[in-house]
């Protein structure tokens, strides 16, 4: 097993306790929830997800967990491997504004807010980040790459190098990466990832993904059963929540909703597709604006949304090599991350969503300083223009300052769609 990080210079990690961070997070979360609760119909057990996203209970629960907790970023990390080692994976991508400010004390301002926000949590030693024994980082973009280096002073960091494309030679490299990650996890947790364990966890995650797809299909049949924000809330709780409990609760939710189907009529709302940079709790600013203005977010292709639970790992047979291959394929091939040289898959995905959900307009969330998504918006805009589908690009970050401004723009866009 080759070490990727040499760590020639080890620095003392910069840490800074910030008071009231927890309260601020709660406040930001409640602000979203208040806005979401204004919606006429919400499924009954959505309150469970609200509680999980607030995080306090789950945090205590994880604190008491005796095994390893492994943090990860992005949708590229095979959670199967982590679960197979009886460890708990926690996705650390964050959308919290206050920690951005914390981070800006040591890092420059011109860095993507997601990285700053997540790293801020580490600096201020709060939230789930503190509980993690190790963190796995992929290399989709430059900020994440350098985050690896910076974080290596704080805790063990494992790197998963993402290839530049999805050709067969890249697939081989990626498979090697997955295999070495497996060894690393085995080393770290002192548990062997046996064939049976892999099989079990693949089944477990497969169950979660199919359940999610079930929910997705329910919403496709009738998007108004559940708001777009509620849908994203359900997805994003899965980043932190106990997987089996999440499955149980979501099964319940699906049952509830499929019963509800008959009573609920489609009304005349504008259907919106949200795409672009990740939108992560509690940064639901844009979504709040859209849905408060009466439009409905029917689908998304966000890596923090649908994409994180949609893709399946489907091994043809339960042999170790085939399973590892399926894991590698499952996480690489259907990804729509803009880190690949050619990203036709994303365009196809968006076009397909537009067709399947009969979307009225596309809103492109472009996180400030997230260059990859920003660049890609250009091609997508031209292609959508050709197909006569209106698209609005919103450049923004995690701060609340530009709320009014965005509101005016979205309002005008929705007005145009109505006509």
């Amino acid at each position, binding site marked *: 097993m080759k070490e990727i990080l040499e760590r020639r210079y080890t620095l003392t990690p910069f840490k800074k306790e910030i008071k009231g961070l927890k309260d601020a997070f709660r406040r930001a979360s409640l602000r979203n929830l208040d806005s979401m609760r204004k919606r006429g119909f919400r499924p009954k057990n959505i309150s469970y997800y609200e509680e999980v996203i607030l995080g306090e209970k789950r945090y205590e629960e994880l604190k008491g967990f005796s095994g390893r907790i492994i943090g990860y970023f992005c949708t590229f990390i095979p959670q199967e491997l982590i679960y197979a080692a009886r460890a708990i994976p926690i996705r650390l991508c964050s959308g919290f504004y206050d920690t951005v400010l914390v981070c800006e004390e040591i890092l420059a301002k011109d860095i993507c807010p997601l990285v700053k926000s997540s790293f801020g949590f580490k600096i201020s030693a709060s939230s789930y980040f503190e509980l993690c024994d190790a963190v796995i980082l992929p290399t989709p973009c430059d900020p994440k790459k350098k985050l690896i280096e910076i974080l290596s002073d704080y805790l063990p960091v494992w790197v998963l190098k993402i290839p530049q494309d*999805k050709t067969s030679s890249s697939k081989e490299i990626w498979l090697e990466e997955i295999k070495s990650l497996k060894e690393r996890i085995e080393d770290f947790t002192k548990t062997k990832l046996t064939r049976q364990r892999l099989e079990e966890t693949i089944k477990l995650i497969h169950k979660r993904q*199919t359940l999610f797809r079930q929910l997705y*299909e329910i919403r496709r049949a009738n998007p108004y059963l559940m708001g777009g924000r509620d849908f994203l809330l359900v997805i994003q709780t899965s980043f932190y929540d106990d997987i089996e409990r999440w499955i149980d609760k979501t099964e319940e939710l699906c049952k509830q909703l499929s019963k509800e189907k008959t009573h609920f009529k489609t009304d005349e709302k504008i259907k919106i597709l949200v795409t672009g940079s990740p939108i992560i709790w509690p940064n639901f600013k844009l979504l709040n604006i859209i849905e408060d203005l009466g439009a409905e977010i029917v689908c998304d292709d966000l890596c923090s949304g649908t994409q994180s639970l949609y*893709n399946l790992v*489907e091994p043809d*047979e339960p*042999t170790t090599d085939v399973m590892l291959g399926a894991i590698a394929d499952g996480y690489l*091939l259907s990804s729509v991350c803009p880190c690949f040289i050619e990203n*036709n898959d994303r365009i196809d995905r968006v076009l*397909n969503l537009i067709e399947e959900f009969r979307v009225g307009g596309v809103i492109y969330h472009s996180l400030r300083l997230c260059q990859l998504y920003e660049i890609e918006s250009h091609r997508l805009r031209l292609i959508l223009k050709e197909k006569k589908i209106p698209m609005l690009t919103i450049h923004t970050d995690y701060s609340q300052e530009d709320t009014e401004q965005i509101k005016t723009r979205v309002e005008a866009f929705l007005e145009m769609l109505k006509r």
Partner: protein
Amino acid sequence: MEKNKIRRPMTFLRRISQILCFILIVFGAFLGIKKQNLSFLPFIEAPLEYKEQLKSEEKGAVILGPAYPQAFDTYLPVKSCRFLRQVGTFRACFMHFVSESISWLTPPRLLFSHILLFLILAVLLGRFWCGWVCPLGFIQDILNIIRKNFKLRRFFFSEKFKKTLRNLGYLLFISIIILSLLSAIPKLPWSVRKQVYLSVCQMCPVRFIFPYIGNWPIKHNFSPFGYGIFTMISIAFFLLLLVSFFIKRSWCRVCPSGLLLSFFNKGSFLAKRKEPLKCTRCGICVGVCPLDNKEVYLQKKKKNIDFASCIHCFRCIDFCPEKNCLKVYFLGKTLFRSKFKR
């Protein structure tokens, strides 16, 4: 969730078809299905001379020379594989027909109806035979299932080697034609022509399978070492077939029968269709394909996803998780479509 739901309907149907066909082809004569020497299809009539010869054979006359004076069996007309003379009914392979009709320089007027039958079936179904009927395919699938249950590792041929095997298939096909032509030279004495007569059957891996499971007492139709080089080749092919324990459908990549059918795959009425937009490029279809074909996965522009090396097993359609992304098409109708499974 119902418990007894068939998760992979196409594969399920295919296994049933394979088992039935295997029994029919290999042990059909035991099942009360009378082994016939003549075609039951009205438009395919055996030539008169042959009928007479058969009659005299039945009466006990000893016929010198080859037992097959005329070729009149493609695949449906009842006539078993020559290694299953006692127990089999019809054959799934028509290479014998190709070879025989050349060897005996059968006049085209007698061949017409057979070629017509072959063409109709090939144009309708393409390589459907390979996936659903062929007993050799079934044996390979069984070998692979055994490995799967022992949880042994699955191996793959490299792309390069796959190409080599395919080229070998072409070579084999061409040499069969040439050898058959050689055996047809009337001036040569029979003892010489005999050496290359029916070379396709002499090279076939089946020589080491069917006589042992079908014929009691075991009787080789050829003395195994009488034809030196061909026997060596057939041993090699038999070994290749055994490789399917580790590499799915290893023999199918060479099989000349499959090769001939594969020319009809592109235009066959039984076809696969793909909705390019719906495909998420998840790659699942590559992993489940017995021949690890990438074409289904790669195609993102056209709806037509038929290509030579597909055996119409439709596993890709069984496994594709995108609703309506892949479809089985037959005569313009959708028979089956991929769907997301709960």
